[in-house]
């Protein structure tokens, strides 16, 4: 045993040969407070560092696509509410957009404006809840989530007075909307918008400058732009890595081309950029909403050609996609002339955003893995379908 003192690093290195350290395999199981539902990660730890992380899906696989093949097109719409249960209007819109391409229907002006208003309100709800859950995952027990859900209730009241349900709106139809706005609804939206911009300033004052949040999220879970593109990451996670790809600008579906909004782009692609991109997107959404509430015309809310509620399209296939708050939500439909689709496939953004979860978490600690999972923003209804 040589008597010369050596630094701790040398001791560790020598130890690896002799004492050596074993690896701890722990299941970040289906029942875990920080996994946003029943998601499981099999983590192998060396000391505190993550050496390997295998995500396990399927605990909420509710066979959405198999049921969709035995239900009529109209009957699928309430099921799309339950895909991403935090943003049901955008899931409705994605499915209805694909079916309108299939059946050749077109929503009239007023319905297009209502769709933009509901989609942007959903973006506000989703991004606020994300900021609340991310802060909760980082240890801010309750306070940000309490404020986030308090504001979410105002928007849910709007959804409820228009469509009849808080979360499961089931409001979009092929060629328009189910029913018209109750009177006083638009004033309600503008009241909520004024309160929301004040709330956003307050929320940013609480979170964005907070040193603990900066320390825990900056430089953590960096996602390079080329890996993000290759892995099919879409939505705020992709834009945080510096890629300018927002379907509202790329596809310009609906009437998004009339709204001059900017797309926030991050540089580093770490957790803080993903959080900050969403906060800035909320501010843009408020701008879009203000313009939509000003410009919404009167008129019919249903396409004249849409006779019956459900459609019975001829054989053919379509892939329609929209920019849901989580990313590119696509619906791939193969119709064979019968009242229910032959093949009904959902392209789930949360599911595919988890492709590179392991690359982002390698070498970091378990607490960082929780922050990274929180910043990717997954909802298990959409991940497992």
């Amino acid at each position, binding site marked *: 045993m040589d008597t010369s003192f050596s630094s701790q690093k040398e001791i560790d290195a020598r130890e690896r040969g002799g004492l050596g350290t074993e690896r701890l395999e722990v299941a970040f199981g289906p029942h875990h407070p920080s996994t946003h539902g029943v998601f499981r990660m099999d983590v192998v730890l060396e000391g505190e560092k993550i050496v390997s992380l295998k995500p396990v899906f399927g605990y909420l696989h509710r066979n959405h696509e198999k049921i969709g093949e035995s239900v009529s097109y109209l009957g699928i719409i309430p099921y799309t509410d339950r895909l991403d249960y935090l943003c049901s209007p955008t899931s409705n819109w994605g499915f209805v957009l694909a079916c309108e391409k299939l059946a*050749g229907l077109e929503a009239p002006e007023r319905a297009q404006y209502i769709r933009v208003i509901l989609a942007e309100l959903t973006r506000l709800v989703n991004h606020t809840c994300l900021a609340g859950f991310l802060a909760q995952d980082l240890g801010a027990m309750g306070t940000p989530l309490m404020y986030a859900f308090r504001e979410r209730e105002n928007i849910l009241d709007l959804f409820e007075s228009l469509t009849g349900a808080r979360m499961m709106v089931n409001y979009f139809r092929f060629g328009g909307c189910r029913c018209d706005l109750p009177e006083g609804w638009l004033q309600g939206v503008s009241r909520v918008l004024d309160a929301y911009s004040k709330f956003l300033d307050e929320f940013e004052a609480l979170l964005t400058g907070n040193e603990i949040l900066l320390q825990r999220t900056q430089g953590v879970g960096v996602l390079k732009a080329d890996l993000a593109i290759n892995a099919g990451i879409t939505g705020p996670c992709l834009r945080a890595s510096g890629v300018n790809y927002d379907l509202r600008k790329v596809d310009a579906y609906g009437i998004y081309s009339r709204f001059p909004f900017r797309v926030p782009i991050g540089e580093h692609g770490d957790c803080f950029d993903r959080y900050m991109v969403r906060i800035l997107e909320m501010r843009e959404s408020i701008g879009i909403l203000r313009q939509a509430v000003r410009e919404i015309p009167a008129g019919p809310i249903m396409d004249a050609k849409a006779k019956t509620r459900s459609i019975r399209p001829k*054989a053919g*296939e379509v892939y329609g996609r929209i920019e849901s708050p989580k990313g590119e939500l696509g619906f791939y439909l193969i119709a064979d002339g019968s009242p229910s689709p032959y093949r009904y496939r959902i*392209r789930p953004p949360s599911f595919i955003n*988890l*492709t590179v979860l392991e690359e982002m978490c390698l070498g970091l600690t378990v607490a960082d893995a929780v922050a990274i999972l929180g910043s990717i923003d997954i909802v298990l209804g959409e991940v497992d379908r």
Partner: protein
Amino acid sequence: METPENILARLQAAFPSAKIELLPNGCPSQPPSLLLDPAFACEIATFLKNDAALRLDHATNVTGVDWPKEGYIEAVYHLFSMEKKHGPLIIRLRTANRDTAVVLPSLTPVWRSADLQEREIFDLFGIKFEGHPDLRRILMWDGFKDHPMRKDYVAPDDFEYEPTAHDDVLERAQQHFSKNA
């Protein structure tokens, strides 16, 4: 983006011995799709990804379709380009039949986004993707034997209490009623 027809022509020129077909799409407004020869799938995919005019770097939707009457299972890839921001090119790979020869080349080495989705096709449709880094069941539990999204899959019988059953659910629930009728 170029029309699928002259993409087909350029592919035919680049890979003369590959059998590539253009499949029309029933819906007028949607583009037709290209049926690729599984043997050349990887080379064609790399070509599509690195070609200067196409740059299809975003395989956004990878899914399986079961055609029991036609006797094969399909893997459908929707390709977009994030760089040039242009629209879908749909490519399809078909297996020889539905029970023995269900092997297709995996395109995960080309597009990483196909990783989880190909595992899902293997889990729910039963197509074995060779060259896939980690082909395991993803949604059903590992011991599960069937491929449930196939059209001829019969769900297990747990229809004891079906008070509002009609048409096909009623037949399934029938044995449980008759015991007490």
